[in-house]
């Protein structure tokens, strides 16, 4: 009986000593370059690029080609922006319409606290619908969506969307 207890105790000691050694090694190895698992935080304190799409000009737009659309781009950061890539997407509210119109402009060099206006000639004429069945009379004629995006090479971005009445 005494032998059995001694064997059991010895086996337990051997097990825990081995486990402890592995735990010790694991702690030593893991403490060198441990990083917190929190999400990476943005490096910039706020937006550097601001965009304005004036509502008063939108009210004067017509459903016709060659409509002038102006967008104000401002650098609200302390550093200059080398360039801004601005795109305008004109789409129907009706998602069955396959056509989407894209327009692009590039603004070079935007100094700190500087605002530049970029203009687009956009086609706001009516879209063609694949079938009459895609149109619900109760919903009224589909509206036109204007979506303007601006991005800088360093990743700052701004977006504005407006829904124009039919």
């Amino acid at each position: 009986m005494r032998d059995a207890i001694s064997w059991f105790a010895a086996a337990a000691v051997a097990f825990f000593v081995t486990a402890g050694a592995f735990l010790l090694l694991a702690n030593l190895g893991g403490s060198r370059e441990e990083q917190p698992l929190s999400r990476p935080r943005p490096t910039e304190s706020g937006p550097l690029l601001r965009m304005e799409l004036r509502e008063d000009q939108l009210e004067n737009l017509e459903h016709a080609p060659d409509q002038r659309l102006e967008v104000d781009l401002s650098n609200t950061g302390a550093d200059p922006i080398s360039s801004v890539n601005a795109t305008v997407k004109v789409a129907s509210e009706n998602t069955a319409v396959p056509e989407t119109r894209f327009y692009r402009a590039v603004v070079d060099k935007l100094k700190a606290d500087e605002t530049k206006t970029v203009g687009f000639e956009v086609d706001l004429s009516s879209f063609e619908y694949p079938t009459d069945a895609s149109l619900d009379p109760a919903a009224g004629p589909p509206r036109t969506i204007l979506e303007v995006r601006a991005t800088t090479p360093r990743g700052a971005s701004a977006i504005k969307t407006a829904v124009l009445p039919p």
Partner: protein
Amino acid sequence: MRSRSRTSIILVIACVIGLAGCGPADEVLIDPAPVERDRTDLGLGPGVRAMTAGPGDKGSPSYGPDDERLAFVMDGYVVEKDLSTGTLDRRTTKDFGAGAVDWGHYGEKLTVTAPEGEEGAFALYRTQSDGSGDMGVTLISEGVLAAARVPGGSDLLAAFAGETQSTLARLKEDGEVSRLYTRKLDGSATGVSLSPDGHRALTSTREDGFFSLYVVDLLEGSVRQVARTEEGKEILGAPQWTREGLYYVAGESEASEETPVYELYRLPADAGANTRAEIVSDIGEDFIPSNIRVSPEGDRLAVLGRRSLNSPANLYVLDLENGDLQTATSNENMEIKTGPGDLAWSTGGQSVVLVARAMSTEIEVQATPADKITADFYNVYEVPVEDLGD
């Protein structure tokens, strides 16, 4: 004795060594998961959740049997959304011209309707809905005026158009007629609803400006007329067969009055030709219902309507057993669709989905991509309807 104490010491030491390293190491902070943003008030009251976003005229929302998927029609094509992943799959081509969609019994197939040339008639299609991206659809029937799924199976009960009458038929999943009901119904069918046991059907028809309700015994094939409106009155949408009787919305049609006023009516399930329908007073004297839908258990009625002529439309839930009417939404500036298929229950009866958009006519510039905007477009909203009024 000495040996026992020695053993105890060895065990204590072993435990101390074994527990080494199990204490708190350097703390690692894990940021909490972001709170779901669409749980805020979206214009229909707290707790209402947007199920869809972005442009597109959505309608006919329908939960899958497991409540994990939602199908709906958008601009004439069918879309299925996986509610756990948010993935959208188009189930038909964009030029399909779908009018409504419903799930099959096992959630594998969708029934899609597409309007035909004849007024009010539509074709029935079945489409696979297994997420495989297969947009193949099969035409299963044509010339259908109204259809409903038979409870507990994948069969459909469809009302077919005749010259002046409508014929009911039970269709198998592939469209094969398994039973044709030879007793015809006068007029063109406008809606059909089945009793919870699937043995009887309640069908509304329109004929020469009059609307009628018929109960069809699907086992015996017998037909009895249970209601007929006065001239100039119409029945809105499909009548509903509930545990507490037959419910329908009827009132002056637009042709006879500029602002139509409707009432919710009730008939007992065993009503005959001489039974007079009673106006359901539980919803209030001035209440104007525009759409109703019975819950899966048949004990509640989702009612879309206005408390009075000048109040906004809201969703209410009427407990049919005790007559309690609970308000489910608090709408101020949303236009809620009132089409017969635009109101649906979840299969468990915990929520109701509806379709709505903001009524604003002014141009507003938003700092959001179009596909994230909800209020400006017709989108599907889930309204929790359990524990209302608590």
